């Protein structure tokens, strides 16, 4: 695929990626290029491989074949072993923010410490400096007043906003969202979507796996529909959502648009 762009190196490149769980092939040769500052939404039913693809970008799933690059640097390195690869992947991951469906905030740390732990321990930032930065990011997600609270005291929407602030505090080159609003009560979805819209305005490169069709249509530069481990259809959101080429895409969209209000 190509998204029209003037920048040189794409931010994320996924080339012919294959992945098997046992005998089940969940990714059957996926290609995707995400230019800097662009937002790509990946949709599809559960089991389509969309989450596996996103997790592969961060090497939380180890792909069997193909290449994944971040800003020109290869993420998967089958040639590297042991500690050398560990160092390599830790470094790569510091440049990728990941947001999970179930938030995965660290319950033993205050909200502020959740945000500052990685900058302090991985970038060697002084506590004072890190806390200033942390408060700034908490402020950006509208939770400056929750800095000293523990995650157990937060609502789902607040937890996810802190999780986004935690990822942003490492000043990543790309943000990966793995169904960030799927575990939320409907009335809490919008506050998280708002934060993601803000990021879009600031031209953060984003790869979003989502079930929210209206949101995907609104915010994305490119949309992709996966089924059975292959990309069925992709295109600009206008074309993709209003006039898709494939019957399977139409079926999927019909089901999901009608189920939403």
């Amino acid at each position: 695929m190509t998204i029209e762009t003037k920048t040189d190196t794409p931010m994320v490149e996924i080339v012919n990626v294959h992945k098997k769980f046992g005998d089940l092939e969940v990714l059957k040769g996926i290609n995707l290029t995400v230019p800097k500052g662009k937002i790509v939404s990946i949709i599809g039913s559960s089991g389509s491989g969309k989450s596996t693809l996103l997790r592969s970008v961060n090497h939380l799933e180890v792909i069997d074949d193909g290449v994944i690059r971040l800003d020109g640097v290869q993420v998967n390195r089958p040639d590297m072993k042991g500690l050398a690869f560990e160092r390599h992947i830790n470094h790569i991951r510091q440049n990728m923010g990941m947001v999970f469906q179930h938030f995965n905030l660290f319950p033993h740390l205050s909200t502020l410490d959740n945000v500052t732990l990685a900058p302090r321990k991985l970038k060697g930032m002084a506590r004072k400096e890190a806390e200033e930065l942390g408060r700034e990011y908490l402020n950006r997600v509208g939770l400056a007043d929750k800095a000293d609270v523990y995650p157990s005291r937060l609502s789902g929407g607040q937890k996810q906003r802190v999780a986004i602030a935690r990822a942003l505090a490492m000043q990543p080159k790309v943000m990966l969202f793995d169904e960030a609003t799927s575990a939320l009560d409907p009335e809490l979805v919008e506050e998280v979507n708002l934060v993601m819209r803000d990021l879009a305005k600031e031209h953060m490169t984003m790869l979003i796996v989502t079930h929210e069709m209206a949101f995907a249509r609104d915010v994305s530069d490119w949309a992709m529909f996966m089924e059975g481990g292959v990309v069925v259809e992709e295109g600009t959101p206008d074309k993709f959502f209003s006039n898709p080429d494939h019957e399977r895409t139409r079926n999927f969209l019909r089901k999901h648009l009608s189920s939403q209000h």
Partner: protein
Amino acid sequence: MELDFSPVIAYAPTLLSGVGVTSLIALVVALFSVLGGLLVAVISVYTNKVVSWPIRFLIWLFMTTPLLLQLYFLYFGLGEWILIPALMVGVLGLGFHYMAYNADIFIATIRSVSAGQYEASRSLGFGHLRTLFYIIVPQAFIRSVPQIGNNLILMVKDTSVLSAIGVAELVYASQYAISVSFRPFEFFIVIAIVYYLLNLIMEFGQARFERMTADRR
């Protein structure tokens, strides 16, 4: 029968030194068994079967045989080869015994921390060991405190078993006084109260820690 506590008062210095030895043993064994148990648990959970199975076997062995027997093995068994002071044998024996019990609990709580916590930490760029140190182990520790606290209370009482190998802790210290004063009940009552007070301190500390970490689960 009338109770006469005057011999207890006469032998107060002996008893106090016994209290001191008991407290010291309890403190050292508490630190040793908790930190050691944590280390053993981490190694057992995060290594392959070649390492973890022998560890599990040792834990099981320590938990299924009597403490007294373990102490005899250490004291008289090892005594065949090297001379170790009874106090050292006692601290090591009690320490390993409760290290096994604590490790057993830590293994369960480490496993209970969700895979998502590990992934979230790794996705930020933390390596495996740092993830264990900053994320997994602290959470497991907080979850372990009620059961570890129970173990330590049992441990404080079990320091009395060390009297069997001649460690001059509280029970041992009182035995001489009893044998010359012929007032066992008075001594036993006072000693029981001392153990009760020591464990009251333990329970207080445990409750305080649990209150402090109530939000952090």
